[in-house]
């Protein structure tokens, strides 16, 4: 089963264009949608989760029209929103049971088994009798995962899931997702490059509502081989370097600035070649954009 997103656009009433003609084909497996905050990821995710209407475009999961057959898609949808709350004064097990009934798990014994299995997989079994108001952020996130996994969704929409998790929780969560990814379409939006590089077999980079790159992470990294160079510079030398070379990213390391530069040939002495990572793919893609965006401002007197 594939998810087809075709020409989806969304402009908010105040004129902010959140999505510009987004077209993506997403096969079964883990798919990463990578972009900075405010890039339009959550808008796209809400549209796929039937909670928002695009102005234009179509979305299909196999035979199902996501935009018009909302009931059909909700039968097979798992959605973990970026931000959500829960009733504070109800026990986790009770609320999960309630959601399980709504997901169509009508048979009592089958439901009990599914709920128990999910509480164990999300490591909430020991705290299932606790009220949700007493849950930490990570526990609540895992509860949301359990809700999203109810009913074995064929389409799983996960919006910035790892932001609030500690490292151990993050690993456990990503394992849960990749299990599901063996049979279902799992779309993971994130601003953390590692989430994508560790998990996803395909990815897209989005900024300001536009898809900038659609690729397989390994192949995209391979394309940058022998083209990423690194140089340690003084903190105030950055603007001079940026004048001459295509600086795609800078990082602080031990109080000094480490710049990554994109170049087909060696940019000169002082530079050493580095093994490219998905982070370089991301910054290279984003840097191409910011350069274009900067050009008009050069003409402006300042």
């Amino acid at each position: 089963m594939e998810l087809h997103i075709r020409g989806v656009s969304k402009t908010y009433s105040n004129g902010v264009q959140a999505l510009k003609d987004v077209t993506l084909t997403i096969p079964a497996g883990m798919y990463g949608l990578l972009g900075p905050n405010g890039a339009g990821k959550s808008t796209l995710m809400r549209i796929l989760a039937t909670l928002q209407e695009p102005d234009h475009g179509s979305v299909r999961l196999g035979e199902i029209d996501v935009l018009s057959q909302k009931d059909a898609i909700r039968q097979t949808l798992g959605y973990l929103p970026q931000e959500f709350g829960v009733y504070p004064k109800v026990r986790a097990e009770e609320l999960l049971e309630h959601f399980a009934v709504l997901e169509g798990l009508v048979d009592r014994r089958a439901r009990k088994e599914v709920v128990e299995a999910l509480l164990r997989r999300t490591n909430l079994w020991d705290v299932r009798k606790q009220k949700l108001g007493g849950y930490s952020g990570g526990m609540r996130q895992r509860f949301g995962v359990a809700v999203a996994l109810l009913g074995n969704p064929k389409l799983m929409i996960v919006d910035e899931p790892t932001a609030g998790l500690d490292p151990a929780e993050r690993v456990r969560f990503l394992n849960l997702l990749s299990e599901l990814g063996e049979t279902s379409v799992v779309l993971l939006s994130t601003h953390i490059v590692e989430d994508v590089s560790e998990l996803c077999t395909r990815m897209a980079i989005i900024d300001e509502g536009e898809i900038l790159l659609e690729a397989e992470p390994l192949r995209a990294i391979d394309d940058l081989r022998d083209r990423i160079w690194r140089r340690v510079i003084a903190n105030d030398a950055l603007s001079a370097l940026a004048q001459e070379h295509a600086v795609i990213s800078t990082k602080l390391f031990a109080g000094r600035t480490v710049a990554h530069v994109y170049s087909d040939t060696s940019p000169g002495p002082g530079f050493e070649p580095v093994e490219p990572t998905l982070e370089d793919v991301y910054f290279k893609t984003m840097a191409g954009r910011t350069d274009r965006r900067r050009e008009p401002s050069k003409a402006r007197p300042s």
Partner: protein
Amino acid sequence: MNLREIVRFEFVYQARRVRTWLCFAILLAVAYLVTRGNAEDAARAGGTLVNAPYGIAVTTVIANVLWVLIATAVAGQAAARDVQTRMHPLIYSMPVSKADYLGGRFLAALGINAMILLAVPAGMLLALFVPRVDSALLGPFRPAAYLSAYVLMAVPTAFAATAIQFSLAALARRAAVSYLGSVFLLVAVSMGAGIVANVLRQPTLGKLLDPLGYITVVGLLSKAWSSSEKNTVLVALEGSMLANRLVWIGIGLAVLAFTYQRFRFGDPAARPRAKRAMRRRETPIEARDARP
């Protein structure tokens, strides 16, 4: 199946809240105290019986006015708790129809309110026995008097009021907005109906508009009925009382139908982030590149 589960979950959730039982206790106390007051008056002046059907109807109507004020949150919470706890993206993306969702929440709120209003007959009965009222002041025990007051006066009022409170909260996505509905019912409509009935001298129209049956029962019947009528005659579902109940049940249904039409399983958090987007565009790339 979904409808039943939504009603069950919401009813149980609210039945476990302290607020629900606080409302119950307040109405119980008020019904008890009003009836004890009636008993003292009856002992002093004579004339009416403590458990006169008319007295039961008046006490029910007075308790209803109080109920509209104190139990507003029942409907407001049932309608808007999902948005206010921000759980709505989870539940709105589930395979639940709008009819099951809204209908289930409304029926649960109505059920909780009907349960709270049972405190009124309970309080009135308690007042007769704890401590025991002099049997000379009591007429025969007539369950029909309590039943008719509850079924004809309290429940239709609860239906209309719950429908209005629920709809306001559901469409505004805020529980507190349901108080506007309560204030509207008590101040605008009740006072308006009183003005129509007494100042404009249109008692028929006034009785029709009165959401709580206050004018009919407390205002007009108290003058029209003799003591013996008050002691023996049940407030019946006929004439202006029947018309009034039908009008308010109709208003309740119309408000619910409107809400069903207007309500959307959308995400109200999906607000455009204009300021953030503007700021982002002005940020120099060096600052943005620090971490993706």
